């Protein structure tokens, strides 16, 4: 299942971190380095497994933990109304 950032969501990368805003609620979501990387990977082309794989290749943690963390983060983004699934 491919996931993408909603196209009308305001966001900026600031020194490898990010600020993402939901204009409907005005809530600001600060993203740390890893979350920011995942955010950028949500391009509607990659699926969750592929995103987790990319993160796994960059961090020293076991694959299952990373997959679970990525899934959890994407679920939070979904709840915040920042992403959509294809």
């Amino acid at each position, binding site marked *: 299942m491919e996931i993408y950032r909603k196209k*009308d*969501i*305001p*966001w*900026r*990368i*600031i*020194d490898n*971190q990010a*600020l993402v*805003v939901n*204009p*409907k609620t*005005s809530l*600001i979501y*600060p*993203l*740390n380095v890893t979350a920011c990387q995942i955010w950028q990977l949500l391009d509607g082309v990659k699926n969750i497994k592929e995103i987790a794989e990319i993160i796994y290749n960059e961090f020293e943690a076991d694959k299952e933990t990373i997959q679970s963390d990525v899934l959890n983060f994407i679920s939070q983004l979904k709840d915040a109304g920042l992403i959509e699934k294809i």
Partner: protein
Amino acid sequence: MTLLDSIYLKTEALRIPLYVQLELTQRCNENCIHCYIKGARDKLSFSRDDKELTLVQIARLLDELVEEGALNLTFTGGEAMLREDFFDIANAAKKRNFTITIFSNGQLIDIDAANRLRELMPVCVYFSVYGWDANTHDGVTRSPGSFRRLLNVVQLLKIRGIKIGFKTMVLKHNFHQIRKIFKLGKELGIETHEFAEEITAKIDGSCQPKFCQLDDYLMYEYYKGDIPSTWEYIEDSSQEEALKKQLCGAGVFGVCVSSYGDVFPCVELRIPLGNVKYQSFKYIWHKEEGYLAELRSVKEYKDLVICRSCKLVNFCRRCPGRAFYDSGDWRDCYANAYQRALLEKRINDELVEEVR
């Protein structure tokens, strides 16, 4: 420190203009008695002509602002929606993933515009509200029917789920109604209602709008009152501590671009840093020299020589732009700031007495 705080600190260190005010025009379809901009030209300007920035120039500026990391964009005027290409500009900003805030008087918003605003999804549309009734509001705007039209527009936007804010200038002319104006906002379900009481001089330096400002007696009554909120006691602190108070972010994480392309550190501090008609925003913004460098080096009250021995620092809310209009020097103390701090100290002291 939260992640959000640390990112904000980074924006400051990296000179990211996170907050941008874009004045789309100085023209206006109202004629407010206290207006600082309509019919005036900036005392200092690099613009060599009388032409507003075009859509193409604005689109180029927006591209540059994205490069610089700017995120929050406010469209203001004059009346920003007087521009026929307003929605082209706004949609260009939306396409570039800015948050969009609009300051407007609402007079040009019909059903079609309301639908387009819903598509635009601004974080907030702020309207100026000067009265609880047509007499008072229209008396300030000098635009008959403006109050009635505004109330209709509020409904148009509300049923479309667009967030609305009110801005009220507290003037001699509406002081008697501020409680009712506040109540009106509540009754209409307005999300944010901001009040301000310090009148800005006109951008050409004229102090003419200041005749609307509350006198000391009314100002005292206003601060002592409970609109928009009751006075919150300010802890007495040592002079050393008080001088650590932060000054504003003008020219640090905030910037204003006028409709003629002048780049100012803030909508109030109208000493131009350059003009985007002739220079890139990047060049203007990163030119760490002269007055911009000095402005950025002044972070706390202790950095201003004139404040170091002042016993009112704890209560001061100085604005470098207003200081500039008063004395010609943005670092100076100015009468309004001093008087306001004096009144606030008095109210604070009275509160202590009441508690005793």
